[in-house]
């Protein structure tokens, strides 16, 4: 069942359009992550769903019902803010109970629900404390608890981990993942600019750029089959290497040349294109491996080496000056100035046309 539908939704401030033509269906119980660079409109979109921002055009359906004009509190949606937005003058209990109090829920019922949420989030010992007496992680849990108490059908998370330090971020991420398991019927929409969070948490990822959806899909799909250059560059870390290439479309297939030299690739189809274009060849650093000079697809000089423990990253410059990163396991010993010859499985290569769209594989 569809929990949330966005149909041709638009939003603009003055003349500036910040959300254009967004079409998206989110299923009940699904965990959807909006990801994209800052300013891409992902938070705005989330706040439009919450009702904190108005919708200029298009429709928002919640549970199949037109909801553009429904006030936030009536949408059955709870939200966890980036800053947690805990009420500083109330203790944890009061923070959790506040929405119920406003809704005139009876006292015993409030007690019950708050207690349940506190138990779930291990907040029971802190119920009498004020937010400023809590650690960052505890505050985060209270913010989530506030959503749980409302028994909302949809949770919205606006970059909930960005205020935490690295270690806590990982721990909390796992907690959210567990929460997702426990509240299986609850739809969750999560905004982040961190693609690791997106990859680890999401059932589906929505990649946004400049107010538009670039691609929607399961994390692995986005990793394996990015629809365009933007998604390819955004998903994965370190980012995919992009190399200029000349694409010639012939008879429904694509021939790729770099610096006048043809590259042996298992075929990309032309996808109906024809002629010659300047395109881009993409390969992820982790998919590169050493090869003999003859078998090598790329050759370059090592500029800098980073030893990260389990992996080693080589920053290289190819013969034509294009920079390239390669990721090896730690056993590989590298030195600056060393010339490396690299290969990749043809199935790990990505090819994009002049418009940045991925070419379909055969």
């Amino acid at each position, binding site marked *: 069942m569809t929990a949330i539908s966005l149909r041709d939704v638009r939003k603009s401030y003055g003349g500036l359009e910040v959300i254009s033509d967004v079409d998206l269906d989110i299923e009940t119980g699904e965990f959807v992550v909006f990801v994209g660079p800052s300013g891409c409109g992902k938070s705005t979109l989330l706040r439009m769903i919450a009702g904190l921002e108005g919708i200029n055009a298009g429709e928002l359906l919640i549970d199949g*019902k037109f909801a553009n004009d429904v006030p936030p509190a009536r949408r059955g949606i709870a939200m966890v803010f980036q800053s947690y937005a805990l009420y500083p003058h109330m203790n944890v209990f009061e923070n959790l109970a506040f929405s119920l109090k406003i809704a005139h829920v009876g006292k015993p019922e409030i007690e019950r629900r708050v207690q349940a949420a506190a138990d779930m989030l291990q907040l029971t010992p802190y119920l009498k404390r004020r937010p400023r007496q809590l650690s960052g992680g505890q505050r985060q849990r209270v913010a989530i608890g506030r959503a749980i108490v409302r028994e909302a059908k949809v949770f919205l998370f606006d970059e909930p981990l960005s205020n935490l330090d690295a270690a806590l971020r990982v721990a909390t991420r796992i907690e959210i993942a567990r929460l997702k398991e426990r509240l299986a019927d609850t739809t969750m929409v999560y905004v982040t600019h961190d693609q690791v969070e997106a990859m680890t948490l999401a059932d589906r990822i929505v990649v946004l750029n400049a107010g538009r959806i670039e691609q929607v899909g399961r994390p692995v799909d986005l990793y394996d089959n990015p629809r365009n250059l933007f998604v390819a560059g955004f998903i994965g870390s370190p980012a995919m290497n992009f190399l200029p290439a000349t694409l010639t479309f012939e008879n429904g297939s694509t021939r790729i040349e770099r610096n006048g030299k043809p590259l042996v690739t298992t075929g990309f189809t032309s996808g109906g294109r024809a002629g010659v274009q300047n395109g881009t060849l993409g390969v992820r650093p982790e998919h590169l491996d050493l090869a003999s000079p003859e078998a090598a697809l790329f050759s370059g000089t090592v500029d800098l080496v980073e030893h990260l423990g389990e992996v080693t990253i080589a920053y290289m410059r190819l013969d034509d000056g294009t920079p390239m990163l390669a990721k090896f396991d730690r056993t590989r010993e590298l030195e600056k100035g060393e010339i490396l010859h690299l290969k990749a499985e043809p199935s790990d290569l990505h090819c994009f046309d002049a418009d940045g769209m991925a070419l379909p594989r055969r």
Partner: protein
Amino acid sequence: MAQDTVEAVITGKQATRDATAASRRGEAWAALVFLTPWILGIVLLTALPMIGSFVLSFSNYDLLSAPRWVGTANYERLLFSDPRYLKSLEVTTVYVLVSVPLAVAVALIIAVTLSEATRSANFFRGVYYLPSLLGGSVAIGVLWRQIFGSSGLVNISLSGLGFQTTSWIGDPRYALWTLIILNVWQFGAPMVIFLAGVRQIPKEVVEATIMDGANPVQRFFRITLPLLSPLILFNLVMQTITAFQAFVPAYVVSDGSGGPIDSTLFYTLYLYLEGFRNFRMGYAMSMAWVLLVIIAVFTALSFYASRFWVHYES
């Protein structure tokens, strides 16, 4: 739970409305409700009285009989043929131009000095700003009259030290200065503002200048002063507005007369005497309006001039 959600949801497909506009309207209504007291206040207690006083300023209203329209006669007299008015303007201008910069300068120096004394700062800060709290109270006026009276504290101390004494509040050469001193005595308020400003100067900036070898004086002029310049402007403007309107000290110290021979005839005191003692309320109202213009012009000038010396962090 789902029911709460649903109740307000409008079913079926409809033409999309501009929800933003609707919520804006709701917000405007809420704003109106919240602003009702203020709107009533500004209309009934400020705007209408202002209009009233503006109209009265063109009349010879004597408080006791119906006002009579006299056109611009009040303003003409004010600007061209009332030596006492000019005197009051002179007195007030001297008061403002001397006491305000002096108070602000003292406040700045003390604040900078105080900011370096870490342990005792709170104590001194308290001692320094207490007088400005007591401000324009009658009790302070009484006190001042006694301190600078001919047998007052100052003269007792001076004669004890073997100096010639004089009557400070009885002599037109000095009387205004006792009030200037009173105003400077109350430098606490600007000082506290500066103190907060000094504390906000990033430590790194100060440390960087120390590393660059600047001595304390250079540091004051090159770093502290420019960084505090917005606060200096602010203090000057606020103190000036207050000083132009000073009333109680002059009223109490000169026994309501502005004497001796008008040497402490503050603008507002003369306005008060003309309006309430001499039955020229229309004239007093024209003075009030000219004062408003003076303050407005002065404030505008200060902000204009500030472009050339106030340094804002972008």
